[in-house]
Structure formats: structure tokens, C-alpha cells
């Protein structure tokens, strides 16, 4: 049962990622793109966790944590760039 | 840097200690010793980076608030999901919320709560920290939104922060 659920979940998350990419490319504005990649980061966390469950290993948990941290900083930096230009000033 | 043999931010130290235990996957002698050391050392090193000390008054109310928010988050997700899936176009609005809180951390917590809860996202805090601009996904009326937020979140927060 878990296998099936896992399979379906992976499918849904992957599809979600594709939708994010769609929004990223479609835009139309730059905040849309940043929002899309921010969401993509979060989807990536889900994928990593799902990979861990699939492989029955917790080896990738820290990767997930790192995506969360890095995704956040990256989004914040991009957002700040969009309105301030200068990220560090 | 290590001017005191104390815990300048006890709450932070506690959180750090717990975090360490969580990260270490289980409590052991080693992890406790190291956890205590880190819970002391890190706040000592970083206290300069947190100049505005959070002034909690009624700390015990915090868990209740968190649980409520968690519940609302799940609810919010369902409502947003519904809005996304329904063919109806939403009627969004920007609402200016007059803030009564003045502690920056409290404002921040409120704004975050608003963003995580049904149909609202905190879009902006005014420069004077007096107004919160909220984007409402499917607006009923401004006043309703403001009242709901005040009663659910700002009032409890005001009680906690002083």
C-alpha cells in the first residue's frame, strides 16, 4: 500500500514541479518567476523526503533541511533584488 | 564575547538545546553535554545579532496560540485548495489592517500568522509599523477581515507581548 501511495505521491509532486516550471517560464512578471522557483524549492524538499522513504534511508534529510534554508535565502535575495537592486548594502 | 557565564537568551538556549536533541536523533549523555555547551555558547556569540529582546509576558499562552494557528493552517489549506479547484474566479482585495501591536517581533508573528491562515497574505508592513497591508483572496468585507484577525490573533498576541 505504501508503495502505491508513494508512487502516486511522487507523481503528484512531480506534476506539481512541472506546473511550477510552467509558471516560471510563463511569468509574466519577475515576482511570478521567483514565486515559482520558491515553490519549486519546497517541492524539491518533498521529492527528497519521498526519495528517502523510497530508499528507506534518512541519508537525505539534511539535504532537505538545506534546501529549505537555501531556498528561503535565495528567494529573499531575489525579492530584495527586484525592489532594491542591491541585495547587500 | 563571552563576558558572562550565563544564558543571555534563556528561551533561545532552550530552543537550541531541544533542536540539538532533535538533530542528534535521540537523547544521550554526549548529546546532552554538547547540547548544553552549544545552548550556552551560541547565544553568547550571536547575542549582538538579536538586539531587540522578545518580551514575553504570558509565555504559557504560546502553545495554545501555536496549536490554534496550526489548526487554522490546515483549515486554510483546505479553503485555498477549494478556491483553487473551484471554477469560480475569486474576488481578491487589499485590506489595510490597523496594528495595535508595536513590538516588531509581535508584528512579525502576527503577519506570519495571517499569511498562513485562511485566505489572507500579509503583503506589507507600513514604515511606521502602524498598518498591515493584507491581500485577501476572496473578500467579504474589509471590516470582517479586520475583526476576525484582531480577535483570533492580535488580541492573544497583545496579551503575550508587552
Amino acid at each position, binding site marked *: 500500500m505504501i508503495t502505491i501511495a508513494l508512487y502516486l505521491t511522487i507523481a503528484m509532486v512531480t506534476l506539481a514541479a512541472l506546473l511550477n516550471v510552467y509558471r516560471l517560464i510563463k511569468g509574466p512578471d519577475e515576482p511570478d518567476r521567483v514565486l515559482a522557483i520558491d515553490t519549486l524549492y519546497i517541492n524539491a524538499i518533498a*521529492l527528497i523526503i519521498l526519495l528517502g522513504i523510497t530508499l528507506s534511508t534518512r541519508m537525505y534529510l539534511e539535504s532537505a533541511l538545506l534546501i529549505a534554508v537555501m531556498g528561503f535565502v535565495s528567494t529573499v535575495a531575489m525579492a530584495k533584488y527586484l525592489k532594491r537592486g542591491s*541585495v547587500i548594502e | 564575547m563571552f563576558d558572562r557565564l550565563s544564558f543571555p537568551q534563556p528561551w533561545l538556549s532552550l530552543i537550541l538545546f531541544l533542536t540539538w536533541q532533535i538533530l542528534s536523533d535521540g537523547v544521550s549523555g554526549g548529546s546532552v553535554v554538547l547540547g548544553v555547551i552549544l545552548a550556552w555558547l551560541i547565544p553568547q556569540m550571536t547575542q549582538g545579532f538579536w538586539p531587540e529582546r522578545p518580551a514575553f509576558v504570558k509565555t504559557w499562552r504560546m502553545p495554545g496560540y501555536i496549536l490554534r494557528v496550526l489548526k487554522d493552517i490546515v483549515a486554510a489549506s483546505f479553503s485555498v485548495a477549494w478556491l483553487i479547484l473551484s471554477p469560480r474566479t475569486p474576488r481578491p482585495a487589499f485590506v489595510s489592517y490597523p496594528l495595535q501591536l508595536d513590538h516588531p517581533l509581535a508584528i512579525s508573528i502576527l503577519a506570519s500568522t495571517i499569511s498562513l491562515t485562511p485566505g489572507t497574505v500579509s503583503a506589507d508592513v507600513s514604515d511606521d509599523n502602524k498598518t498591515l497591508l493584507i491581500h485577501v483572496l476572496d473578500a467579504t468585507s474589509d471590516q470582517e477581515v479586520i475583526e476576525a484577525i484582531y480577535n483570533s490573533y492580535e488580541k492573544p498576541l497583545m496579551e503575550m507581548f508587552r
Partner: protein
Amino acid sequence: MSLPLVVLLPFLGAIAAPLFAQGGRTAIAIASSVPALIALAALFPHWAVLSAGDTVLHTYEWLPALGLSFSFRLDGLALLFALLILVIGLLVIIYSHYYLKAKENVAKFYSLLLCFKGSMLGIVLSGNLLLMLIFWELTSLTSFLLISFWTHKQDARRGARMALAITGGGGLALLAGILLIGNIVGSFELDDVLAASEQIKAHTLYPVALTLVLLGAFTKSAQFPFHFWLPHAMQAPTPISAYLHSATMVKAGIFLMARLYPALAGTEQWFYMVSFTGMATLLLGAYIAMFKHDLKGLLAYSTVSHLGLITLLLGMGTQLAAVAAIFHVINHATFKASLFMAAGIIDHETGTRDMRRINGLWRYMPHTATLAMVAASSMAGVPLLNGFLSKEMFFAESLQLNLPGLWAWVPPIIATLAGIFSVAYSARFVHDVFFNGKPVDLPIFPPHEPPRYMKFPVEILVFACIMVGVFPAVSVGPLLFSAASATLGGDVPDYQLAILHGFNLPLLMSFLAFFGGLLMYTQRRRFFDFHAQLREVDGKAVFEFAVSEIEKLAHRFTEWLENGSLQRYATLLVVSVIAVAAMPLAENGFHIGENGLSPVDWPTGIAAGVLVVSALATAFWHRERFYALVLLSVVGLVVALTFARFSAPDLAMTQLSVEVVTIVLLMLALYYMPSWTPMESSQGRRIRDALIALAAGTGMTLITLAMLTQPFSSISEFFLENSKPGGGGTNVVNVILVDFRGFDTLGEITVLAIAALGIYAMLKNTALTPPPGDGLGHPWTRDHYPLMLRQIARPMLPLALMVSVYIFLRGHNLPGGGFIAGLITSVALILQYIASGMIWTQDRIPFRYHNVIGLGLLFATIAGAGSLAFGYPFLTTTFGYITWPVVGKFEVASALVFDLGVYLAVIGATLLALVSIGRLSPHSAIKSKKESA
């Protein structure tokens, strides 16, 4: 020892001469004369050996790998030339003493002159061809400096450069020739080469070697068509001309031909090449000399002509001709040196060398005139003077050439013709200068006799002309015999040195030449008119034009190729790579490996699709820079996921962290840059680039495919086995990084550190003006540090530090380690900068990032060097388990200290780099005391 000494002495003198500069001109002149005197004394004792027909040989090993030795060899030929060099050299020194003006750099003059003398002696005394070549080229160099002694004169500089180019270039040809000969013979020792005559001439490369050697000789001796440098070298001070262009430099080519005569001469190639070149030079030089108005120009072309004569004699290939050649070398040296000196006196006293202005000097300087007239007569071949004797021999030899049919008439006719010209220009020299009315507009008027001893060298030489002319057998007989014998390899023909050999055909030719010459001189107007009609082909102009055209062409070609376009250079690189990588593929075809392909799971497939699409989209939309940046970070994210997917958690984490820092960095830069790239490349270029990119991509795809499908085994089994027992950690990747290949990691953090230091230095004094708003015209917001961001940044730092410690400590056993931990800390600090600004954050950081970097490198190095104390190599790690109460058993590993170094270096470097850029922003003009100290 004496032979090397003879060569060495002038060089020592050259070094010594400037030291005597304090003592004044006389001291220098005396100091410069001493080497020659000692050298003469050193040569004298060898005469006994030489007159017995033997050679003196002194050999010292130098570079056996090259076949090069310090081999000095004295025989008759060498002695003759050495004497010419030394004696005339001495005279030139005396002469120069009076010639040079007070303000001139006398020390430099003598120094160079002595260097030149030493080089010349080196040429003639070398017993090894390579050694000779070294001296040969040295004469080119020193003569270059001598000719251009008056560096302020443009003509002098040009003349010198041309002389260097021609003679130096000829030297390179000679080098090739000598190397060929050396290859054929198997030795460069002169004795071996001269003994291998048959072997050389029989070799298939003989014509090539001969041509190359002759090129060297002809250029040096100013043979047609390389003759043109010599007249232009006359820009040198006259003593130099007297020395270089009568007795030494130009005679080096003659010497070379004489030296190698036994080895190379006697073949048809030799005959045709040498004699025809000589003949052409003889005639051309004599002809042009006639029309030169410049006193030294006349002498120069006459020199060209006489060199041609000697060359022709050597080319004839008969033994007597060779003797005549040697004889004429002596005679030409004496009369030409004296003539040059006389010309120098005239120049010195009148201030000009233009024969159209110099007239009737007999009245003003009869002594000099007498000397010059005797020397000129010798040049013209007037009986009782030495020039006559060798010219007679030449005329006689020109009749002996065994040419078929009417061709047999050609050499004597040419010889006579040249004789006529020679008499004519000699007559012109005498008449035009010393008689022919009154001087015209002389810069110095009236001219006087020069100082008494300035004439002394001329007198000596003129005396020699007469002595040889009248008592040839007594004066030069033994020397000539010895030299001729050496030239001919011991086989000296019968010849007689007498004033007259009776009334014979050669005498008739002399007679013809003499009166023909005088006649020609009287009819000179017609000849001048005739000559004026000719379009003069000046070799110098051609040469200079050619050189300047070559330079211009080279410049244009270089500019065209090296056009400053990175696009071109990168294209060349990429295309080169594609070409070399495609070659093996083209040779052997493409094969998928034995393992074949494994099935694709669809989430991976979709991820790959996302990766491919976003990579291509980055390229496609690169002109929208921010958009491309977002796409780029998608690529980075999916790459990280790929690492995770294929069992590389450490890589996934590293990639993620690095990517974020990179993106932040790019955004920091983008702030100052145009946010949008205009369409610049033409469509053709874009298509071309796309095709190149496609080829590169296809190539990498094929390579990867071929690689992935091949079975594989590596040294990594060792790492997996030894990681825990040997390195004390279960995370093999980390153990490789800090232990098995810790040295790579040390290098890597050094790179990081250097990059940061370089960035800091590069931006130290850079000012950039940021645009007032984004590319779409929105001004920047004034809200620098949003409240929510600031609030979340506060707890983020301690939490991130906690996570860093965690990631750091577990790295040895589980994915993580110093590098990733360092990046987490860095990113947390970067967040502080973003949220609260430079000044705020910097104020709370109590250390300089430079020191953090230094500390990191130091920790890593010390951790590595610790093992040295125990006699183990650098970076040998150690670890152990310690059990403490409460804490329990835990591991202590020296590798952890190393990793701590990595951690610190990463933090220091990352932040120093980012902060350096951030500091550019006008808002963060940090001028705290720390910085300005």
C-alpha cells in the same frame, strides 16, 4: 694556453678600458693597446711551428653534447689574419685617439672595438666550427654597436640595423651549413672537417651545406646581392670603417671561404657559385664606386669590388688563384685601411666627405695627400706597390680559367674592365680631392694637416704598401707561403713574388686597365651622365622597404587575428576541442558499451526534462538577465536533486549551498550591470554559435553515453575498505576529502582563500555607480530592511550555527562536513547582511574575514603538519576513541581539525567576497576604524 689568451685578452681589455676612463683618453688608448701587444707577443713563439707547416692546437672541453669545444687552432692562415687584426687594430687605436672628439664616449668606443677585435681573433683562431660561429655572430653584434656608435644619427642606426640583419642573418645560414657539415663529418673540429673533404663533397646534402656556408660568407663579405649593407655601414666613425671594412669584418667571409677551402672547394658548385658571385660583385662594386660623391662611399664600393675580386679568385679553384686571393687580402687590408684613415683625416679637417666640395687639398695638407695618393695608387694597381702584385696575379689567373669556347674570354675581359674602373675611381679619389681647383664651401676652412701622430698609422700602412710592392718576397713571402699552405691544405703551388714577371698578357691587361682607367676618368662627365640615366636600385631602400612592409604586414596580421574578442578565442578553443575529440570517434566509430542501457523511471525522466528545458531556456532567454538567473538556479536545484537521486548526498548538499551563494553573488553584480542584453550578434553568428554548441553538446552526450555503458572498476575499493579502519570515518567521501586526498582539499581551500583575497584587492579602489532603478524604469524602493525579514533573520543565525555544528560534527561519518557547515554559517550571515545591512552586521562581527581565512588555512596546515612531529608524512591523520563519564565514548580525530580549517576558510572566503561587492554599494560606505587602519 697562449691561443685562448690571445682571444681572451681583448675582451679583458674591453672590460678594463672603461676602468681607465678616469685617467683620460690617453690612458684608455694605452690600456686598449696593451692586449694587442701582449697578443702579438704571445703569437710570436708559434712561428717556428707554423713555418714548419704544422698547426698549434689548444683544446678544452665545453659542451660535448653539442660537439662544441674551446678549441683554438693556429696555422698560417690564422696567423696571417690574426696579425692583420692585431696590427691594424693597434694602428686604429692610435688613429682613433686623435680622431675622436673630446666629448665622445671614448671608453665605450675602445671597449666595443676591443670586443670586436676579440671576436675577430676568435673567428680566425677557432679550431671548432661551432666556436667559430659563436665568434662570427659576435662580430655581427659588436659591429652593429660600432657602426651605430653615433646613435644620434639616423643613418648610422639604420646602417647598423641593416648590417646586423644581413650579416647576422647570414650567420644563421652559416650555422645551418656548419651543422650540416658537422652532421656529415660527425665532428665540428676543424681538423676533422678539413680531413673529411671527400666525405663532405660526396654527401647528398653537400650542395645545401655549401650554399648555406656561402650565404654566411657572402653576406659577411658584402658579396652581390648582399653588398648593399656595406656602404651604409660607412656611417660608422672612420676608424671603425678603416678597421671593420678593410681588414677585419668583411674579410671574415673571405677567411671562412679560405678556411673551408680544402673541405668545400674544388667542385663545380663551388666554382660557379663563388666565382660568379665574385665576378658580379667585382664589377658592380667597381662600377658604382666610380659614381660616389662621398669619399667613404667610394671607398666602400671599392671595398665591395675588391672583396668580389678575392672571392672570384677563391672561386676559380686553382691553387695559384688561392694564393693570389690570400695575397690580395693582405694588400687590400693595408691600402684600404690607409685610405680610410686618410679619408677620415680629410673628413676630420674639412668637416665633409663630399668630393664635390673637397677640392685642391694638396695645397692645404700635402703630407696627407702624398700618403693617400700612394695608397690610392696601390688600389689602382700601379707598379711598385703591393696592389699591383696581387692584381697581376689575378689577371694571370683570369686567363687560366678553363671555360669552353668564347666563355674563356669573359673572365679576362671582366677583370680588365674592373681594373679600368678601379683605376678610374682611384684617379678620381686622387684628382678630385687633392687637385681639381679650389674647395667649395667647406665647413672647416682652411683645412690643416692633422696632428702629427694621427698620420702615423697611415704612414706605417703606406710604408707597408711600398715595402710589399718592392720587396714582396722578403716582406710577406714567408707569411704568405704559410697562409697559402694552410689554405690549400699544405699543397702550395710554385709561385714567384717579384716586382715584375716580365712582359706578358697580365701586364698588358694592367696597362690597359691603367690607361683605360685614366681615360675613363677624363671622360667622367659622359659616364656620370650615362649613370644618371639609370634608375638606381638601392639595396638599402629595397631592404628597408621590405622590412617596414613586413613589420606593417605583421602588425596588421596580428591585429586581425588577435582582435581582442573573447568570442573568437573561445570559439577557437571550443572548436579545437570538438575537433580533437571527434577524431577518435571518426576513426573508430561510436559504440555503446557492453553494459547497455538501463530503464528510466519517470520521475527521474521528468526531472531530467526540467533540467534540459531550463538549461536550454537559460541560453535562449539569456538577454533577460534576471530571468536567466532564475532559470539558472532551477538548473542548479535540479542538479542537486540529481546528485541526491544517484547516491551522492554530500554532493547534493554542497551543490545546493554553493548554488545559492553563487546566485546571490550574481545578483550583487547584476545590480551594477545592464539588466538586459541588447541583441548584438548577427543571425549568422548566432546560428554558427548554436551549431558549435550543438556539436559540443552532442559530443559530451556521446562521450557520456559511451562511458556510462562500459563496465568499470576503480581504486575506490580501497577507500571503501579503509575508510573506517584507516580513516576513522564511515562517510567515505568525507574521509577521502580530509584524509585519503586531503591534499586536494588543502589546495581547494587555498584556491577559495586566494580568490577571496584577490576579489578584495580587486575591488579595493573600485567605484561603480549603480543605476537609479531597475531596467524597466522603476526607481529602487527606499525600504532597505523590511521588518518581517529582519525579525526572522534574528533567530536564524543561532539556529543556523547549531545546524552548522551538527553538520560539521557528523561529516566524518554521515553526509556533511566542514565545507557544507561553513556554507550554512556563511549563508546565515549573508541573511543578516541582506536583512539588516552592511553596517549593522559588520559592527557585530568582531573579526576581519582575512584573519578567518588565514586561520582556516593555518588550522588545516597545522592539522596536516602535526604528523611530521611523529615522523609521518604531511596530512597523516590519527584518531582514537575516548570514554568520558556522562558523555560516553566519542571519537577524536585529527581530521576534524583539518575540517575545522576548511570550515573557517569557507566562511572567511565566502563572506569576504560577498562583502567586498556589497561594499561597492553607496549605502554601505563603511568607514569604520577597522577598515581604514
